[in-house]
């Protein structure tokens, strides 16, 4: 850590000023545009941010105002966050793929006066709901394409606002506002994805953010030389910590991809050294690798499978510093030269020093695949209310079934019901305008309930998460019901995208499955199975056979666990549509909303507990622009083989 970090820094603008001085000509932001990586040094970024902040002053932003930001990851929008703080306002990043209603809810809830929008799509979204939002005074857009003809009375381009700021902005006033910031002033407000209810605005102070950045950077020895790829939603706390807080704290470079679709090739070009991805991203990459290997020549395929086998046996041990025989080492070296390193290069993961996955449980096979490539992929467990970090895995203690030890500065407690509580410097200030929820979540001593049930392994001291507390239930016979546990096991199959298990208060468990179109579509192509739509493919008898087999295998593995043996799935069906956040079936962070699904597909749930083997259903779907449509389907219900529950439980 450099010396200047030891003097107390109290706000993000201060960190920026420090970087502009200390790392002046070092690259701070990169973005691929027009086929080239454009870059900005810390000094340049600081100037851009200053100009924008002065621009906000000319708009009449007063301290304490809320300013929303919506758009894809671009340096300009990250700058906006810091600029907003400079003028004493609170940045509120929103999910760029949220539909107009969701955006309206957040904008109304926080009473935002200004919005910084990425492009026409986002501007349109706000314009659509503008009538019900009297609080929005002005919209600033970054990419002006298609916006030329819009009425510009309440609309300004980002560049124009900066120009105005440079020309007319009151620099003395800006300095005064910046100096007024302290550790307790609000740094950011982030809306939780809201698995169960309307989103809540989580208020994080400078203290939360800066302490967290400091602790987490020290934990993984992050330096100013890291490169990260900023591709996860800006509204998500993780991105805020990685791309804003840790980047500013360490002075490392944030790289923004050209578009969401080019993420993979941009990842390869940048080769980040510090990488974060939810399991879904790793899964997609692995699926693609496997599909492409199936298409490769025989020799290549053989070589790949042989050496991946070697890597899988030896790689994780090498990574954890265990003893490995010289012959195995030699074999592994060969595997690295011929398969592992080229593959890592293709994946854009060659330079990864520290990689994290979180958000959902990751399948052991998936996890081990990346570990065997020698990628230091670790798990962490956190939430917005904790400014991300609750627990994380230290180097050399990585396992797929735990989430690690408490992060620096975090205290853990498990209460009698099994719920995990934590207390840390990152604990959020409050839910915005919601003292009741705040009091329900955080007690007066600062302990926060996670809502997750878990336990600490005695041997290793690692935390293991079982399920959401409210989802853990009892079945009719009193046995423990942990849907997430079963769903995760199902989702570990590459061709299962999502699973929703029902069974609370019932005699037995049933499930909805979602096929993964990429994996199943490829399989269909390979086996000459023709289909014209997702819906048709999902109901193909052979697909159902395959799913039945997966369910049977999962049942067999669950049956071995005495506590959860009753969670075996008796009947299941494959849904005719993908569960989607636009239809409210999932959160924007891709977590299933159990309650919504059970209600919406009530007819299907009833059928699962009935005796019929087929059901006709109609479902309403929402398109991204808010229009609605209907799809109907005839769904087949299958029974899966169930194993006898282990003697002990049955005897009770």
């Amino acid at each position, binding site marked *: 850590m450099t010396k200047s970090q030891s003097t107390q820094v109290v706000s993000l603008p201060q960190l920026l000023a420090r970087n502009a001085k200390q790392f002046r000509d070092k690259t701070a932001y990169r973005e691929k545009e*027009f*086929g*080239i990586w454009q870059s900005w040094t810390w000094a340049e970024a600081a100037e851009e941010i200053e100009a924008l902040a002065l621009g906000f002053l000319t708009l009449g932003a007063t301290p304490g105002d809320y300013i929303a930001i919506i758009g894809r990851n671009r340096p300009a929008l990250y700058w906006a966050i810091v600029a907003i703080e400079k003028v004493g306002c609170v940045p509120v990043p929103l999910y760029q793929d949220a539909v107009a209603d969701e955006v309206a809810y957040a904008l109304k809830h926080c009473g935002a006066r200004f919005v910084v929008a990425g492009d026409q799509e986002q501007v349109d979204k706000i314009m659509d709901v503008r009538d019900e939002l009297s609080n929005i005074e002005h919209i600033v857009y970054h990419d002006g*394409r*298609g916006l030329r*003809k819009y009425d510009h009375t309440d609309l300004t381009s980002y560049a124009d606002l900066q120009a105005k700021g440079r020309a007319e902005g009151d620099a003395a006033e800006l300095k005064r506002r910046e100096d007024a910031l302290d550790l307790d002033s609000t740094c950011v407000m982030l809306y939780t994805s809201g698995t169960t209810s309307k989103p809540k605005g989580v208020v994080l102070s400078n203290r939360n953010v800066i302490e967290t950045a400091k602790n987490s950077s020290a934990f993984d020895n992050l330096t100013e030389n890291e490169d990260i790829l900023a591709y996860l939603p800006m509204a998500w706390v993780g991105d805020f910590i990685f791309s804003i807080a840790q980047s500013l704290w360490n002075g490392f470079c944030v790289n923004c991809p*050209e*578009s969401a*679709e*080019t993420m993979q090739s941009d990842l390869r070009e940048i080769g980040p050294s510090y990488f974060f991805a939810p399991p879904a991203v790793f899964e997609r990459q692995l699926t693609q690798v496997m599909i492409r290997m199936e298409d490769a020549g025989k020799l290549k395929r053989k070589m790949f499978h042989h050496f991946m086998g070697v890597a899988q046996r030896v790689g994780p041990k090498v990574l954890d510093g265990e003893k490995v025989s010289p012959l195995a080492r030699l074999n592994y070296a060969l595997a690295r030269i011929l398969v592992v390193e080229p593959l890592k290069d293709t994946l854009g993961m060659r330079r990864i020093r520290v990689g994290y996955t979180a958000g959902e449980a990751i399948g052991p096979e998936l996890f081990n695949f990346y570990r065997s490539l020698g990628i230091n992929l670790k798990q962490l467990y956190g939430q917005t209310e904790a400014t991300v970090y609750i627990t994380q895995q230290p180097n050399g203690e990585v396992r797929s079934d735990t989430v690690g030890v408490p992060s620096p500065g975090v205290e853990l407690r498990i209460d009698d019901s099994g719920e995990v509580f934590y207390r840390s410097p990152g604990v959020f200030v409050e839910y915005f305008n919601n003292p009741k929820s705040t009091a329900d979540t955080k007690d007066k001593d600062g302990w926060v309930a996670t809502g997750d049930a878990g336990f600490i392994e005695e041997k290793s001291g690692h935390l293991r998460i079982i399920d959401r507390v409210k989802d853990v239930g009892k079945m009719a016979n009193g046995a423990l019901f942990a849907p997430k546990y079963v769903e995760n096991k199902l989702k570990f199959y590459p061709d299962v995208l999502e699973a929703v298990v029902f069974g609370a208060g019932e005699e037995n468990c049933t499930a909805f499955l979602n096929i993964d179109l990429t994996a199943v579509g490829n399989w269909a192509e390979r086996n000459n199975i023709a289909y014209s739509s997702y819906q048709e493919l999902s109901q193909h008898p052979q697909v159902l056979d395959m799913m039945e087999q997966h369910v049977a295998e999962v049942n067999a593995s669950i049956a071995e666990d005495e506590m959860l043996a009753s969670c075996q799935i008796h009947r299941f069906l494959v849904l005719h549509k993908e569960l989607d956040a636009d239809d409210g079936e999932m959160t924007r962070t891709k977590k299933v909303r159990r309650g919504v699904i059970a209600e919406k597909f009530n007819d299907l749930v009833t059928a699962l507990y009935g005796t019929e083997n087929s059901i006709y259903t109609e479902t309403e779907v929402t398109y991204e622009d808010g229009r609605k449509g209907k799809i109907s389907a005839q769904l087949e219900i299958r029974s899966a083989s169930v194993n006898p529950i282990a003697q002990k439980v049955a005897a009770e």
Partner: protein
Amino acid sequence: MTQVLESYQTEDGRTIGDVVLDLKNITLRFGGVEAIKNISFNIRQGEIRAIIGPNGAGKSSMLNVISGFYTPQEGEVWFNGKPRAPLRPYQVARQGIARTFQNIALFEGMSVLDNVMTGRLNHMKSGMLSQAIWKGKAEREEIENRERVEHVIDFLEIQSIRKTPVGRLPYGLKKRVELARALAAEPNLLLLDEPMAGMNVEEKEDMSRFILDVNDEFGTTIALIEHDMGVVMDLSDRVVVMDYGRKIGDGTPDEVRSNQDVIDAYLGVSND
């Protein structure tokens, strides 16, 4: 039949300027077959002009006359206020006319980027030798042209397939690449031959948006042939309707929609 004579303002506030292309009494024959019979209409600066009609009405022939590929036996083509002599295709391109094809005509083995770069050929002046040595003018030109092409790629949102060989792309994207190549030539007049044929609803929506954006952003005059009536009526400022080589309607979408001849040709004559 109404014919707009002066410059006019569209509903969304664009100004449509002078006549760019004026077709006067065009007749085109293939042997004994009259594909186009004595047709006159014009295209104005900045407008989106559609040519519609049932199969075999002579739409594509008409587009080929405009592009200079066919020379009509009778009638005159006036371009930018002057009668146009029969031209070779490259001369047409140099006049600022670019087109896409009904059956995609791309270089399947080349990447999207290389395909779009071919649209810039007319803007490259350096000789073969300097291209080979790759110094001075050739290098400068390539960089300048690449920049233009990158703007087009950005505009049409095809960054993710920049380096993909065209042969591997689905149909809808190939159509978009073709549009990109035509746009790279920075045309004054863009001819689109059934830009939406064979597309699904979503692809059609995307393509419509791009056509409107091109017209709006670059002020490009667009003449398009299209089967999909819904698309035509939404997109175009003025529509020419052809049937059996004859012009049976000409005017704004609303005028054309209420024209009895057009209704008969499209929907068939009611027998009630």
